[in-house]
């Protein structure tokens, strides 16, 4: 287990550093940007008032940009779940199915390792990859916060939006992994998962100004993502919903991988291994 886990984590090393350091720098400088923008308070308010309501809805809608928490949400947490969500989807669809498509999983599974070991070791490495990216990013935010007096926040509060972000990313990851076990190719799973992310973003954003979307919004993962709003308190209920659905998706993906044939070219698609009468397994 440790061999496969450490190999995967090693392969993700550049991804961790690239995304982590990049986002950490962005987080660090956000605090400087806030201080410089604060002086232009009145001009910005006039400018924002000129924007259509629909557009503002995509950047948080109800949040106040001049409030430190609102600013952080608007400038980072209102969109980063989409960007990192796509990264998580890419990682999840490459985790098992892409290796099957490339053929490299065959030789690994011919060694005395179980499918469960392969599945959970790869998954653990991917989840840790996301966690490390978020921890490094949080480090940048924490340094930025320490360097300013303009924010009435403590370092502990700063962790909350990252927890919420992690939960929604885990859901996108687990959805993509599940879809990769059902859909014909890793590419198809990526496409559908990314569509879900984009659609979820639009639905939850537009639901703020159109009540008719509220029914649909209940099924949107973004509804349960707090982002910068978590700075003023983490919604444990929303967090548990995201984590619970993620866990269900992961268990289902694992069971499907356990039961089905390894994929090779020509083995067809949309074929979930269902035990039929007379099957010997």
């Amino acid at each position, binding site marked *: 287990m440790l061999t*496969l886990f450490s190999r995967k984590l090693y*392969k993700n090393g550049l991804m961790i550093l690239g995304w982590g350091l990049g986002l950490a720098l962005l987080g660090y400088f956000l605090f400087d940007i806030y201080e410089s923008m604060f002086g232009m308070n009145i001009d910005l308010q006039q400018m924002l008032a000129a924007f259509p309501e629909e557009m503002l809805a995509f950047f948080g809608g109800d949040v106040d940009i001049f409030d430190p928490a609102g600013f952080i949400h608007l400038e980072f947490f209102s969109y980063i779940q989409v960007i990192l969500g796509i990264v998580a989807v890419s990682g999840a669809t490459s985790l098992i199915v892409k290796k099957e498509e490339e053929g490299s999983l*065959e030789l*690994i*599974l011919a060694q005395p390792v179980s499918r469960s070991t392969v599945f959970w070791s790869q998954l653990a490495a991917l989840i840790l990859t996301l966690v490390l990216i978020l921890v490094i990013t949080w480090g940048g935010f924490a340094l930025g916060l320490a360097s300013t007096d303009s924010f009435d926040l403590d370092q502990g509060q700063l962790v909350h939006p990252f927890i919420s972000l992690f939960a929604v990313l885990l859901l996108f990851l687990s959805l993509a992994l599940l879809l990769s076990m059902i859909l014909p190719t890793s590419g198809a799973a990526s496409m559908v998962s990314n569509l879900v992310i984009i659609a979820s973003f639009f639905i939850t954003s537009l639901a703020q100004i159109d009540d008719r979307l509220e029914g649909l919004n209940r099924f949107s993962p973004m509804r349960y993502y707090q982002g910068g709003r978590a700075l003023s308190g983490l919604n444990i209920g929303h967090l548990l919903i995201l984590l619970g659905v993620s866990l269900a998706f992961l268990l289902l993906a694992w069971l499907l991988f356990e039961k089905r044939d390894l994929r090779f070219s020509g083995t067809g698609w949309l074929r979930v291994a269902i035990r039929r009468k007379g099957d*010997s397994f």
Partner: protein
Amino acid sequence: MTDAIIELTNLHKYYGKLHALRGLNLTVRPGEVFGFLGPNGAGKTTTIRCMLDLIRPNRGTIKIMGFNPQQAPQRVKARVGYLPGDLAMEGDFTPRKFLRHLRKLRKDTRSWEELLELAGRLDLSLDQKIETLSQGNRQKVGLLSCFIGRVPLMMLDEPTLGLDPLMQQEVLNIIREEADQGTTIFFSSHILSEVQKIADRVGIIRQGALVEIAQTDDLINRALTRASVQFAEPVPEDSFGHLANIKILRINDEQRTFTLEIAGEMDGLIKTLAQFPVRDLAIHRPSLEEVFLKYYKDDQGEE
């Protein structure tokens, strides 16, 4: 407990509507080199993948050293070295790192020195990234991976694929040496000359079912021998009429050259030929390839 190291009974495998294995029955004995013959799509690779629990049969039973791969996959895989036919490896590994990686996944492994010696025999550089290696060199890495564990059974799917003739011979030598140490070798191939060289027994698979299984020599001897005889003067066509096991295939050169097909003993033919002035005689024993092709030509004829 069974004496067979591989025992397949009434194995069926469907890929959607495609019936890839149709009641395959096969037994391989410990210590033998078993050649599994068949053209592309006959079911060779599917059979091997079922034996390693990479895919699951729809019906039938598999026993590898007494274990059912669907119920005890780790026990089976710990006892088997496997070379896939469609070999693929993560390209950012060097062969050295890849082999070390696989070595960590096994318990009872050969020493690193033994693997280095084999790499030397295969003339394989271990420190170039796999993605930059030629197909032949990747095949060598795959072959080495089979030798990582100390296993009683090796399943090799097209082991000489992509190798040059000299290296093919070296690989066959290595396989034969491994068999001499007591390892059972189950290998699939459609290069029949190499099967003929090293296989103790062969099984021929056609459309997912075994159509023949025999000692390699028996299979060849069982087939008809051909003789081409050139006489110094014309010979009457009915000169061979009294020989029941002889069939005249062709007569050329104004009844001076005869092409004959002989079933079984040659004694009658030799005695008959002695009555005439023979200028040249060529006996052609069929290769395994011709035996194999016969099965497939028959099959096409049926279709």
